[in-house]
C-alpha cells in the first residue's frame, strides 16, 4: 500500500517535472532553434554565380563546403571577406569550396563589392530568398560548415577572424 503510494507519487511528479523541463528547454532555445541542425544533412540548393555558372550544393560531395551568407551593407560581413578570400586561395586545392550567398541584393551592388574587395570565390545571389528561408538565416553574417558527406558540421554567426576561418577550413578538409 505504502509502496504503491510512493511509486504513484514519484511517477506523477516525474511526469510533471519532465513536462516543465521540456517547456523551459523549448522556450529558452526557441530563438536559436535552427532550421538546419548540426549533424544533419544540409538542404540542397542551386544558385547561379556572377559568371553565370550554376552551383549545386550536392555536386560538391567529396569536398568540404564553407557556406557564407552575407550582405554588402553588413559591416561584419565586409570585415571577414578578405580572410575568407585568403583561406579560400589556400585551401581550394585541398578540397574546400567557398560559396558566398548574397541575401537578395542587386547584381550591381554585389559585383561592385566583389571588385572592390577583390574576391576570388564564387558569389551567388539568393534573389527571392528561397535559400535563406531553407536555412533560416538571421542574423548576418552566417556561416555553415558542410563536410564531404554533405552534413552540417558547424554553424556560426558573427564576424570571423582569419584564424577562425583557417580553423573552420581545416575542419571540413576532406
Amino acid at each position, binding site marked *: 500500500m*505504502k509502496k504503491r*503510494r*510512493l511509486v504513484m*507519487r*514519484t511517477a*506523477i*511528479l516525474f511526469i*510533471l517535472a519532465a*513536462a*516543465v523541463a*521540456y*517547456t*523551459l528547454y*523549448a*522556450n*529558452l532555445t*526557441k530563438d536559436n*532553434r535552427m532550421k538546419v541542425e548540426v549533424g544533419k544533412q544540409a*538542404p*540542397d*540548393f*542551386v*544558385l547561379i554565380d556572377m559568371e553565370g555558372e550554376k552551383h*549545386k550544393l550536392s555536386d560538391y560531395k567529396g569536398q568540404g563546403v564553407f557556406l557564407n551568407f552575407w*550582405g*554588402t*551593407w553588413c559591416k561584419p560581413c565586409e570585415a571577414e571577406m578578405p580572410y575568407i578570400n585568403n583561406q579560400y586561395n589556400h585551401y581550394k586545392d585541398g578540397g574546400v569550396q567557398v560559396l558566398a550567398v548574397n*541575401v*537578395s*541584393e*542587386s*547584381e*550591381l*551592388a554585389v*559585383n*561592385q563589392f566583389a571588385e572592390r574587395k577583390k574576391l576570388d570565390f564564387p558569389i*551567388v545571389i*539568393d534573389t*527571392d*530568398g*528561397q*535559400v535563406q*528561408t*531553407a536555412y533560416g538565416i538571421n542574423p548576418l553574417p552566417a556561416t555553415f560548415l558542410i563536410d564531404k558527406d554533405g552534413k552540417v558540421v558547424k554553424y556560426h554567426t558573427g564576424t570571423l577572424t582569419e584564424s577562425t576561418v583557417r580553423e573552420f577550413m581545416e575542419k571540413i578538409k576532406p
Partner: protein
Amino acid sequence: MKDVKCECGHVNPHGTVLCEACGKVLDEQSQDKSLLDMRYEGSARRSQTYNKSIVDKIWNFFSSVKVGVWLIVVTLVASAAGTILPQEMYIPPTMPAEEYYEDQYGWFGKLYYELGFNNLYSSWWYLVLIAMIGISLVICSLDRVVPLYKALKAQKVTRHEGFLKRQRLFGISENVDEQDIAAVKQRLKAKRYNIREENGDLLAEKGRFSRWGPYVNHVGLIIFLIGGMLRFVPGMYIDKVLWLREGETKVVPETDGQYYVANEKFILENYDKEKEDKTFEAAIDRAGMVVKNYQTNAVLYKRVGPAIPGEQPELEKVKEHKIKVNQPLKFEKFALYQVDYKLDELNTMSFSLTNKATGNTFGDVKINLYDPKPKYDLGNGYGVEVLSFFPDFEFAKDGEPTTKSRIPNNPAFVFKMTSPEVPKGETSFVAIQQTIEPLGDNQYKMAFKGIETKNVTALTVRKDLTIWIIVLGGILFMIGVIQGAYWNHRRIWVQNKNGEIWIAAHTNKNWYGLKREIESALSETKINIPNDQIQREKMDKEGV
C-alpha cells in the same frame, strides 16, 4: 500509520476525522467540538498524513492550498509588473532595447530592462511560476478528490449519534408516527432527492455531482496549460511575418517550399464622406482620415514536383483571395493575415542627362532600385555609368558614403556621365535633393525626373494546432465553474434513535435554500424543524 477501524466496522485510512461510513468522530481533537468541520467529509487528506521521504515532502508542499494561493498571488504581482512598461516586442524597432528603455523612461526604464522585465512573460522564472501553479493544481486536486470520492461512496444511511448531533442543522422530535415519515419521504422525493433507506433510517441526498465541479474546473485549467505548453513544440504553432512588395512572389515560410504567395496589389482605403451615409459626415469631419480597408490582393501557388531551393520552381495557381483584416487566406492548416503595410516604397528613379549651361537633355535613365544596371547607353556618344549605388544611403563615421540596408529608403548614386565633350566622363554624386561634384565642376548633370513607388504588404503566416486544446480547456473550465456554483450538495438524515426521530442536514452552500426545503418537507407533520446551531450559538453569544 495504521488504518482505523470504527465501531461500525468500517475500516478508515489513517488520518480520517469522521468515519467514512457512519460519521463517528475518530479524531480526538474534534471530539469536544459542538459542530463538525465537514470539509472533504472529514476524510484523510493524504498529504497531511504522511511525511516521510523526499517525494512525500515535495508532494506535501504542492498539496497545500496555502502554497497554491501564494503562487497565484506572486504570479499576479509579476504579471502586473510586466504591464508597467511596454514589453520588448511592442517597442518601436528604431533603437536597441537596452537604449530604448533608458532613453524613454530614465533610470526606472534601465532597471526594468536590467531585471529582464522587458521580456517578462517568456522569462524562465515566470514560466517556472506558471508551471508550479500547474503542479499545485494537479496535486491539490488529486489529493482531495480521491479521498472525497471514497468517503462519499462509503457513506452509510445510518449515522453515528455524535455525527448527527454535531451537524449545523439538527433537531429531535418525539411521538412521530410512520405516516409522517412516509409523507416527508414523499415530499423529499418530489424535490428530486435520492432517498436511501436502511433499518428505518432515511438519507435524502441531491446534487452530489456539484462536489466535482472544482475538479472538473481544474482539469480544464490543466488542459489549457498543456495547450499553452504545446505551442513550444516545433510545428504546433507558427507565427511569422512575410513582407511582400507588389508584383513579388515569395515562398511562404514554414511550408517546406511547398507554397508561394504573390502580392498583386495592396489597397488602403479611407472613409470618404461623399460616399458614406450622411449620418457619419460629422464624425468623419472630426476624426479626419479613418481607414476603411487594408487589403492585399493575393494569389496562392503550389509548387509542382520537387524543386531545390534557388531553382525557379514550377508553380500552379491554387487560389486568389482578397486578404483583409480578419479575412485571411486559408490553406491547409495555415492562414495568412493582413498585419502591416508600407506605402509608396521607392521602386524606380528617373534622371535626365542634362547640360548644365544650355539645359538641353540627352536622354533619360530609369533605374530600377532593386536591380540597377551598371551602364545606360544613351546613344550618340552619351552614356551613364553607375559607379556606386547606396540603396539606404548615409555617411559612415569615417565620412565615407555607405548603405544602412538593402532597402532603397534613401538611394544615392555615384554616376559617371560620358558625353562627346567629355568622353572620359565626369563624376557626380547624386542623392535625394543633393548633388556633389567631387572632382570639380561638371558640364553635365543628372537632373532628377521622377520616381515610381510600390506598396508593400506584411502578412502574418499563422498555424495554430493548439487552439482546439485551449478551447476545450476553456469549455471544461466553465463547465466546472457552473457545476460547482449553480448546484448544491444537500443531505438530510432522518433517523430513528431510541424511539426519537433525529433530523440533521448538511449542504456545502446555500443553507437558506436547504432550510426552506426542510421546512416545506416537514410542514403538517409532528416533526420539529431542526435548529440552526450556528445561528443559535451566535444568538447565545450576543445574549438575545
